[in-house]
C-alpha cells in the first residue's frame, strides 16, 4: 500500500512537473503544477507525514496555486510569443548537460547506498500534535521568524502592488 502510494504518486508528481515545463500556456502549466502538488501530498502520506500531506493540499495546491492562477488571470493569461518557438537546437546540449550530469552523478552515487526499506515509524509520527509540539517548543524561534517572513511578504506585496506612492494606511 505504502509502496504503491509512493511509486504511483511519485510518478504522477514527476509527470506533473515534466508536463508543467513542457506546456506553453502558463495556465495549463499552473494546472499541471497543481496536479503535481496533489501527487506530492500522496508522497507525503506514503512517507508517514500525514500533517504535511494535508498542508500540501491546503497551502500549496490551495493557496499558493490559486494565487498564481489569480495573477495569470489578472494578466489575461499570458502565453508568450517567444515560447511558441522551440529552443534552438544548438542550445539543447548546453542546457541539458548540467542537469543530466547532476542527475546521472547524483543518481549513480546515491544508488549504491540506502537500499534498505525505510523504517516504520510509530503511530502519531508526523501528526499535527507532534509537529505542533516541535513548532512551539524547540522551534519556537522558527515559528516567530516565519511570522516575520510572512509580515515582510505582506508589506512587500502591499508596497509593490500599490499604484500610489504610499501604503494603504499612510
Amino acid at each position, binding site marked *: 500500500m505504502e509502496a504503491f502510494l509512493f511509486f504511483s504518486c511519485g510518478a504522477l508528481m514527476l509527470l506533473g512537473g515534466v508536463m508543467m515545463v513542457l506546456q506553453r500556456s502558463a495556465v495549463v502549466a499552473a494546472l499541471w503544477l497543481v496536479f503535481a502538488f496533489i501527487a506530492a501530498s500522496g508522497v507525503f502520506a506514503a512517507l508517514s507525514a500525514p500533517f504535511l500531506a494535508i498542508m500540501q493540499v491546503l497551502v500549496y495546491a490551495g493557496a499558493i496555486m490559486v494565487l498564481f492562477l489569480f495573477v495569470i488571470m489578472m494578466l489575461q493569461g499570458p502565453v508568450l510569443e517567444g515560447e511558441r518557438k522551440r529552443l534552438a537546437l544548438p542550445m539543447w546540449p*548546453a*542546457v541539458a*548537460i*548540467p*542537469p543530466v*550530469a*547532476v542527475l546521472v*552523478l*547524483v543518481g549513480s*552515487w546515491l544508488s549504491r547506498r540506502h537500499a534498505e526499506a525505510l523504517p516504520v515509524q510509530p503511530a502519531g509520527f508526523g501528526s499535527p500534535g507532534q509537529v505542533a509540539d516541535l513548532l512551539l517548543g524547540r522551534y519556537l524561534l522558527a515559528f516567530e521568524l516565519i511570522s516575520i517572513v510572512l509580515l515582510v511578504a505582506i508589506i512587500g506585496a502591499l508596497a509593490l502592488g500599490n499604484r500610489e506612492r504610499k501604503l494603504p494606511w499612510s
Partner: protein
Amino acid sequence: MHSPVSESVIQESLLRWIVLLPLLGAAINGLLNRRLPRAAVGAIACGSVGLSFVLSLTAFLRLAALPAESRLLVDTVAKWIGFGPLRVDMGFAMDPLNAVMALIVTGVGFLIHVYSLGYMSHDKGFQRFFTYLNLFIFSMMTLILGENLLMLFVGWEGVGLCSYLLISFWFNEEANAIAGKKAFVVNRVGDFGFLLGLFLLGATLLPHLGAGEGLFSFQVMQRHADVLAPAATAIALLLFVGATGKSAQIPLYIWLPDAMAGPTPVSALIHAATMVTAGVYMIARMNFLFVLSPAAMHVVAIVGAATALLAATIAMTQNDIKKVLAYSTVSQLGYMMLACGVGAFSAGIFHVMTHAFFKALLFLGSGSVIHAMSGEQDMRVMGGLSKKLPITFWTFLAGTFAIAGVFPLAGFFSKDEILWKAFSGQGGGVGLYAVAFLVAGLTAFYMMRLVVLTFHGQNRASAEVRHHIHESPRSMTMPLVVLAVLSVVGGWIGWPAFLGGSNRFDQWLEPVFAGGGQMVAAAAGHGAALVEHGAAVAEHGGQALAEGAAAAHGGGHGNVGLERGMAAASLAWGLLGLSLGYLVYSRRTKVADKVRGFAGGWPYRVLLNKYYVDEAYDGAFIRPGFRLSKTVLWKTVDAGVIDGLLVNGSALVVAVFGSLLRLLQNGLVRFYAWSFTVGVAVFVVYLSLKG
C-alpha cells in the same frame, strides 16, 4: 716629488694662493659682472694673474734655493675624498717641473690678459671674457700644481670647461657653440681613457698603500712605482688616451682646429700656449710610470710623430690664418709627445716652454692682424700688411723664425733637442727622426707661406676694410714685443752641451726625471724589460752605446759630432723650407707654378679637407649613433617594445579579457540561471567524485 721617500717635505702655503687668486678674480668679476666698470674688471683680472705670476716666481725662487734633491714644496689644504682606504687630499705641490709650468702659464697668461684688454675692449662680453679667462688660469694652475692625479684631473676638466666656454664665447654664431661643444666632448672621450687609467692605477695601488697615504698622490705613486709595473702598459696607454684628447693628438686632434672659433687671445692662451700642453705635462708628470712600459712609450712616440706629420701637411693648405696656426700647434704638440715617447721628457717640456712663447706670439700677432682686418681671417684677402702693421709684422716674423727653428731663436734649441732624441732616445731611431725632420721643413714652409700671404705683396681686401687697417693699441703690441723677445732668447736657457752650453733647463728638471730613469733601471734589473729595451735601443742606431741608465739621464754626451751635424742639417732644412715658402708664394717662378699646379689637384683637396677625418667620424660614429638612438632605442625599444608591447600590451590583454567576460553579462536571467547550473554541475561532479 723626485725623491722616493720625502722626509723633508716643506710646507709652503703660498701655493694655494697661486691657484686661488685667479679664482678670486673670476669670482669677483663673475658675480659683480656688469656692476663693475670695465677698467676695474680688467685690473682685477690682470692683477690677479699677475699676482699669481709673482707668487709663482717667489715659490720658484724658494725652490731654486733648495738643494737639488729636496726641491719640493707642499701645501696640503684639506682632505678631499676620504672613505675607507680611499684617501685623496686637496693639496698642491711644487717641484722643478711644475714650477716651470707654473711660470709659463702665469707668465704667458698674464701677457695674454693684458693683450686681451685691448683686443676685447669693444666686446659686450668683456666681463664675462675675463671671468672665464681667470677661471681658466685657476683651472690650469690646479692642473699643474695639484698634488695628486685626481687634483690634476680636476684642473684637467676645469680647463676643458673653460676651453668650452671660451670657444663658444661668441655664442651668437651656432658654429662657435658647436665648436665649443665638440672640444668638450672630444676631450671627454679622452677623459674616458684617463678615468679608466685612474681606476686601474688606483686598483693596482690601493692594496699596497700605507696608513695615511693618499691614493693618487704623485709622491706616493712614485714611491710604490714597483707595484705598478705589472699594469704599467695598460695604465700608461689609458692615461695617454686622455692626453691625446687634451693635447690634440691622433685620433682626437679634431677639436683643436675648430677651437679657433674662440677669440684670438683664447687661441693663444689655451689652444696654443698652455692647456693643450697639459697632456704633455701629464705624461712628463707620470714619467715614472711611462718609463716602466717601453711599449706604451713607443706608442706615445709614434702617435706624436704621426700627429706632427699629419697636422703639418694639413697646415700647408689652409687659408684661414688661425687654422694654419692651429694645425701648426697640433703638429708641435706632436713633437712634444714624440719627445716624451722617446723618454726625453725634459726636451718635451722645453719645447712646451719655447712653443708657448712663439706660438702665443704668433697667435697674438694673427689676432692683431685680424683686429686690423676688421675680423677677417682669410689670408687670401690679406697681403701687404707689413707696412701698416710694423710691430706686428716684425714680431710675427720673429715668431715664424723661432718656430722654423732658426738659430739661435728659441725654437731651434727645443726642436733640435727633440730631433736628436727622436734619433737617440729610448725607442728612438731613424724612422722617428726622419718624420720629425720632415715636419720641421714643412713647418718652415707653411709658416713662410702664412707670412707671405699675410704681410707681403698687395692688400687684397675691400676698400672699406683697407681703410680701417691700423696698428693695434699698446696693450696689444706690448705683449707681442715681450713675447717676441722671449721667442728669441727663451731658448738660450737650454743651450745644449754640444754647442758649448750646459743646458740649464735640462739640469733643472733632471731630479724630476731621474727618478723615472732609476725606476727603469730598477725595474729592468728585475726582469726582461731591460733586455728587450736594451736590444731595441741597440738596434736603433749608431748610439748602440746608449745604455738604459744613460738614456734615462736624458741622453748621453757621447757623439757631439753627430749631434752638431744633425743640428746643422735641420737648420739648413728649415731655412730651405722658409725659402721655398717665400718663393712659391711671393714670386711666380716656374717651380712655384708647378707646385701650385700639382697642389691644385686631388692632394690639395685632400689636405684642404683635412683628410676628411671629420667626415669619417661623422659617418662612422655620430650619424649611426643618432640613428641608433632615435629609431632603434627610443622609437623601437622604448616606445615600441617596452611600452607598447609589454606594458600597454599586457594592459590590453587584461582589458580584452575583461571586455570578453563582460559580454557574458547579457541581462538574461535564464542565462544567469544556466551558468548557475553549470556551476552546480561542476560542483556536484567534483564533490561526488571526491566524496
